[in-house]
């Protein structure tokens, strides 16, 4: 009976399809696996036919339903090579409709020698034979039959009756469609052509080759373009025959053709699976490759109904989630946090997503086998650090790190061709492959996302010591390297010298050298480096210091800093170091140079395979298209770790580059990430967003370890980190009458201006001006001199200020305030006068040799020390494109690197020596500092040093000046001041930090720097990543918009290692914009985004509301007529 059905099926050449075409508007011949499952008895109705039933069989066995996975994966892992499939079995699949017999045949050897030619329709067999004879000389099994699609054809000509009948073979011709309607030929824009290249597939009669129709696009697929693109890339061959054809084909009538598609072997090797950035086949660029992959996916989709998961989004994501979850909940892994529960119970707001994910990822308890503390570790680990170590070692040693078929199943779907050949299709990109795809081994490593101050560095160091490079690798390296000389340079120089004396042996030596180079290369390939740490430049020295502190002295533990010019480039030498530290910048430049050269020396870090790769502050790579982010991908290493306190900063996208770096399959695939996480999250639909969120959190769950300072210990219930108390005090400062007068005047003028902008509805247009005004007001709160520190080209502003102050003092009695203002105005007048007189007199100040005017913002050239305006020399250098610019004075070569700033006298227009005075805030600060420093001098155990943060380096200058003045006045050097701002070079920065960290008692005759007790740091430069635990008093001179920035700064002091009570003072001028900034900070603390940091997502209305608040205008009081005292 089965055979009868087969015959019936084979004979159905045209008739059954008529009904199909009529019923379904898409005339695809598709046989979904799903349909078969819905009809398990599979008493296939006539219309399904034999061929489809055979597809059923294959698809049912390999359809990615969760139940069939289990059985299959077991088989895949134990017997991939065994060939269980025999010809007889193959027939059985084809013949037997009973589902029971299918599993026996479902596993085939990858070679798959059996071909079911008989199962194909005769005309397809005929085509196959012809094609193989044509392409492979009849010896290969390629091309292979992929399947058939029924396509409507529209006639473009009228033929004689009976010229083409059903079953007649048709010839297909592919021609590109010009879609650039610009007119005359030969003027095509290549790019546009590529983007919009479309094809028409014409249908010709087999006898005369007369064109009489073209394939119509299907509703879901531009089939002609698909076929055209693939066929012109030689990936497929299409053959067709008329199926449902009227007797008389007239112009514009539609008939059906069956297009049989044959795949060339190149299609399956088109994009080799498992390659991430990989080589692409010659002759295709990235765009073409993308387009072709897309068309392959589309083609398979229409052939089998199961190309990529475009229609099965929900199915896959639930599959994947189940699987991801299953892995999390597997015994041995950490217990699952009740992620989904949180999601359902909490009211969900999209802007909380980042916080939510972080909170969900916070995990207290780590079920990992305890690891003994490595003997080389000099410091003791706190309990939570020990558990982090346990977890990290477990991640590195976990047996699940072998590639599992599970992972493969998530990304690749196994399918069968009609002739039984097994292939794999990528679920998202649609790439196909014959070989079982090699998923890159599951990630060995993870994200250590402990909050800052918990000691990620120590945890990482302990990991390095606890799971070092296997000793045999080290010894093998030593032994082999010993055969060679350690320094290849020496070899070459020696042989060179010998060559000179003995030219006869030259040839032999050259051969030896070549052989040596060859061996060297293989040696480099075989050996394994230690741990590579990549960190931002600013904390490079801190890493060295931490390694020094935490690793006991050991001769074998050598750290190399791969930075600047003295770095080691020989991979063999690099491999001998236990730890190599480099910066993101260096890594990127190395990466760029590796693109150009193949020599092992130039490849440096990239020549080696590393034991472990650690990215510190890994959020640096959060932009996936940035060079750094791509540079870290190409490093080879056994384990990969990302250390960051803020794995997500602004949005969920931030985590993707980390997943990509860790090669978390399948999520490191950008398209998959976008489809299942990014896009659903951006869709704005709560349900989709929640699904995306819970998916992301289940991905992160096993990968990420995050504890915060508030995390409670699982056993004791106490916070895991006990820090000394932190006392925050807001010091309110009342301006003196004179300052108040000045402040009020400037403030009112600014507010009036703001109101005009507001009335004109031009706030967004003048936003920069508004912020500039705000800055001036805020600077006034600090010190009036600050607003005079603007660059010389803004002299007119100063003139304005000066006039303004003069006007203010006119017509008043000589009270104290007026005197103050008069003094200020006088100073300003003087300075402006000086400026002008300097400009006018050529003797006092040198002229710029380029613009022949007095030098503005002077810079000098390193080689010849000639001085120019910065603008002038930069313009000169820019205009010279060949890099052979010369100094205009002495004709010495110069470049951008040679330009250096000349030391500035002072940024202030006012002579600081004569015109210096204390503002109220500064006076208060100095008083407090005196107290704090004296306390430190008295009792360095209970009181630490002082750190002063300001956002203006100008203010830091003034503070420094004030402290010096104090020293001078009291004739003793109480204050030893250090500076930390963006202008410091790496080495000076290190020196300052070291000096500040040393706790020399003040009585000792140490050097001045050793006694540094006050550190003046700019909020931006000193606020990140540093360890300033030598201090215990923090002075925040002015508030910053974003409370988190301030908190970051405080945490520099109030962090692990701090033993004293931390005293924090924030100086706020009463009744001023600063007070309102505090309000704003409170408001922001509840928001995630840094609204004034223009992250682009904030809405304008909230920003406007902020501005109104700062100018203390109500939303309704936009006219500014309120007389409320501010």
């Amino acid at each position, binding site marked *: 009976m089965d055979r009868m059905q087969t015959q019936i099926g084979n004979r159905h050449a045209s008739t059954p399809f008529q009904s199909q075409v009529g019923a379904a508007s898409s005339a695809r011949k598709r046989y979904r696996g799903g349909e078969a499952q819905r009809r398990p008895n599979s008493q296939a109705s006539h219309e399904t036919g034999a061929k489809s039933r055979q597809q059923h069989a294959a698809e049912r066995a390999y359809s990615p339903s969760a139940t069939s996975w289990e059985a299959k994966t077991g088989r895949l892992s134990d017997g991939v090579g065994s060939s269980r499939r025999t010809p007889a079995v193959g027939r059985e699949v084809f013949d037997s409709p009973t589902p029971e017999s299918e599993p026996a045949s479902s596993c085939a050897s990858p070679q798959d020698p059996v071909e079911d030619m008989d199962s194909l329709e005769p005309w397809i067999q005929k085509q196959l034979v012809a094609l193989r004879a044509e392409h492979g000389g009849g010896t290969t099994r390629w091309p292979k039959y992929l399947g058939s699609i029924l396509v409507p054809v529209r006639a473009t000509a009228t033929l004689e009756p009976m010229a083409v009948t059903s079953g007649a073979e048709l010839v297909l011709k592919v021609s590109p469609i010009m879609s650039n309607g610009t007119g005359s*030929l030969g003027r095509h824009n290549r790019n546009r052509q590529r983007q919009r290249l479309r094809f*028409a597939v014409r249908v010709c009669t087999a006898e005369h080759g007369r064109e009489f129709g073209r394939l119509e696009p299907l509703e879901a697929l531009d089939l002609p373009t698909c076929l055209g693109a693939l066929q012109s890339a030689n990936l497929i061959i299409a053959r067709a025959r008329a199926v449902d054809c009227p007797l008389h084909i007239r112009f514009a009538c539609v008939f059906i053709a069956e297009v049989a598609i044959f795949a060339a072997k190149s299609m399956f090797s088109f994009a080799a699976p498992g390659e991430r950035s990989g080589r692409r086949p010659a002759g295709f660029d990235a765009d073409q490759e993308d387009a072709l992959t897309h068309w392959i996916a589309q083609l398979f989709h229409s052939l089998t109904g199961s190309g990529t998961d475009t229609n099965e989004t929900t199915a896959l994501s639930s599959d994947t989630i189940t699987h991801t979850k299953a892995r999390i909940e597997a015994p041995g892994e950490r217990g699952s946090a009740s992620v989904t529960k949180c999601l359902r119970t909490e009211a969900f707001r999209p802007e909380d997503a980042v916080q939510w994910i972080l909170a969900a990822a916070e995990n207290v308890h780590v079920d990992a086998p305890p690891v003994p503390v490595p003997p080389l570790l000099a410091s003791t680990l706190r309990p939570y650090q020990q558990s982090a170590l346990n977890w990290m070692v477990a991640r590195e040693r976990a047996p699940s790190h072998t590639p599992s078929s599970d992972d493969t199943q998530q990304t690749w779907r196994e399918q069968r061709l009609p002739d039984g050949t097994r292939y794999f299709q990528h679920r998202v990109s649609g790439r196909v492959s014959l070989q079982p795809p090699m998923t890159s081994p599951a990630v060995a490593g993870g994200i250590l996302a402990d909050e800052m101050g918990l000691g990620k560095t120590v945890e990482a160091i302990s990991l390095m010591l606890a799971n070092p490079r296997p000793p045999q690798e080290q010894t093998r390296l030593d032994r082999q390297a010993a055969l060679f000389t350690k320094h290849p340079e020496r070899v070459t120089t020696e042989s060179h010298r010998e060559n000179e004396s003995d030219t006869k042996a030259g040839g032999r030596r050259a051969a030896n050298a070549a052989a040596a180079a060859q061996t060297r290369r293989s040696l480099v390939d075989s050996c394994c480096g230690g741990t590579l740490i990549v960190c931002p430049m600013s904390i490079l020295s801190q890493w060295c210091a931490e390694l020094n502190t935490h690793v006991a002295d050991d001769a074998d533990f050598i750290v190399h800093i791969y930075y600047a010019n003295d770095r080691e480039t020989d991979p063999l030498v690099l491999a001998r170091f236990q730890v190599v530290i480099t910066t993101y910048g260096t890594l990127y430049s190395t990466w760029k140079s590796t693109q150009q050269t193949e020599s092992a020396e130039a490849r440096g870090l990239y020549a080696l395979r590393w034991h472990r790769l650690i990215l510190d502050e890994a959020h640096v790579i959060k932009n996936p298209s940035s060079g750094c982010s791509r540079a870290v991908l190409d490093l080879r290493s056994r384990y990969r770790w990302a250390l960051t306190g803020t794995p997500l900063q602004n949005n969920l996208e931030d985590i993707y580059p980390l997943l990509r770096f860790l090669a978390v399959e399948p999520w490191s695939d950008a398209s998959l990430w976008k489809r299942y996480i990014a896009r659903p999250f951006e869709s704005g639909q709560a349900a989709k967003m929640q699904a995306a969120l819970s998916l992301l959190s289940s991905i992160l769950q096993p990968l990420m370890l995050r504890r915060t300072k508030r995390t409670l210990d699982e056993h004791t219930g106490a916070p895991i980190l006990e820090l000394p108390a932190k006392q925050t005090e807001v010091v309110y400062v009342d301006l003196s009458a004179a300052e108040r007068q000045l402040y009020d005047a400037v403030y009112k003028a600014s507010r009036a201006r703001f109101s005009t902008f507001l009335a004109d509805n031009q706030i967004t247009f003048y936003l920069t001006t508004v912020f500039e005004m705000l800055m001036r007001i805020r600077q006034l709160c600090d010190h009036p001199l600050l607003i005079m520190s603007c660059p010389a080209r803004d002299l007119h502003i100063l003139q304005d200020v000066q006039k303004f102050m003069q006007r203010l003092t006119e017509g008043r009695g000589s009270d104290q305030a007026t005197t103050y203002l008069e003094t200020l105005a006088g100073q300003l007048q003087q300075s402006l006068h000086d400026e002008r007189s300097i400009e006018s007199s050529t003797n006092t100040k040198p002229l710029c040799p380029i613009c022949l005017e007095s030098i503005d913002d002077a810079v000098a050239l390193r080689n010849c020390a000639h001085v120019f305006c910065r603008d002038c020399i930069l313009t000169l250098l820019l205009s010279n494109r060949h890099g052979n610019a010369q100094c205009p004075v002495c004709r010495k070569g110069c470049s951008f690197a040679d330009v250096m700033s000349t030391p500035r006298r002072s940024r202030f227009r006012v002579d600081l020596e004569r015109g210096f005075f204390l503002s109220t805030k500064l006076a208060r600060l100095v008083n407090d500092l005196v107290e704090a420093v004296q306390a430190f001098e008295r009792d360095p155990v209970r009181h630490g040093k002082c750190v002063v943060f300001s956002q203006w380096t100008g203010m830091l200058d003034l503070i420094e000046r004030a402290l010096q003045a104090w020293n001078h006045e009291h004739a003793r050097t109480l204050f030893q001041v250090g500076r930390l701002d963006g202008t410091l070079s790496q080495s000076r920065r290190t020196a300052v930090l070291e000096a500040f960290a040393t706790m020399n008692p003040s009585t000792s005759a140490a050097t001045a720097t050793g006694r540094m007790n006050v550190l003046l740091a700019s909020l931006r430069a000193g606020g990140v990543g540093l360890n300033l635990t030598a201090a215990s008093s923090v002075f925040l001179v002015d508030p910053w918009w974003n409370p988190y920035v301030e908190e970051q700064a405080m945490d520099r002091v109030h962090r692990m290692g701090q033993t004293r009570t931390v005293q924090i003072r924030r100086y706020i001028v009463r009744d001023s914009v600063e007070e309102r900034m505090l309000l704003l900070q409170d408001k922001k603390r509840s928001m995630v985004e840094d609204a004034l940091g223009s992250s682009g997502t904030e809405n304008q209305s909230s920003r406007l509301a902020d501005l109104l608040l700062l100018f203390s205008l109500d939303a309704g009081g936009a006219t500014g007529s309120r007389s409320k005292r501010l």
Partner: protein
Amino acid sequence: MFEARFPEALLLKKILEAIKDLVQDANFECTESGITLQAMDNAHVSLVTLLLRGEGFDLYRVDKPESLGINLNSMSKIMRCAANNDTVTVDKLEGADTVRFLFESPNADRMSEFHLKLMDIDSETLEIPESMYHAEIELPSAELRRIVSDLSTMGDSVRISVSKEGVRFTVRGDEGSGSVILRQSTGVDKPEEAIHIVMNEPVEQSFALKYLNLFCKAAPLSARAQIKLSKDAPLLVNFSMNNIGYLAYYLAPKIGDEDIEE
């Protein structure tokens, strides 16, 4: 059986526009190498030749050389039914007395076909001798069109003289006279605007502006135009369409136009 497909109707439209005012009926000679057309105007003063190479088409197929006698006005009416970016397929079956035009829009959502009756047109094909011209000028076609249309407002005939100083187009009419001089220029920035003048011998001839005006309707076909002059030989104005072919016009010089010669 003859089949040819133009990827864009615009090209065919432009070609027709450039010819149809000069000649009414013409034979399209279709051979394996391409389509040629040669025709003289009614007054037998000018001659137009068109060559469209077979390689320039999307599809070109000629089983047996055919001669399609077509009334260009009717064909131009049909071509007006095609959108500029439509694909045009022209075919004629063996022995048929009509030629078929098939227009397909790029999206294949609109298709139209037109049949045009063929005519028997007597015409002998002239051998045009390949000769060395005394002067050859290559200039932007828009420039040529402008000169010709400017000058034709003044008078009926233009005197073209090529000398060492350049090319001079002189016109003398009832209201007055005028002249345009072109000099050699390399077009440093825009090579497509260069003017190349090759002079073997000074030439001076006058031509009817009416015809030159008609020739210049071919300007949209090509960015560059070539003018070739010889003493006692017709003027050649050639518009070449990069890889497809060319459209060339020959014009007999005016004789006895002595008043200008002075």
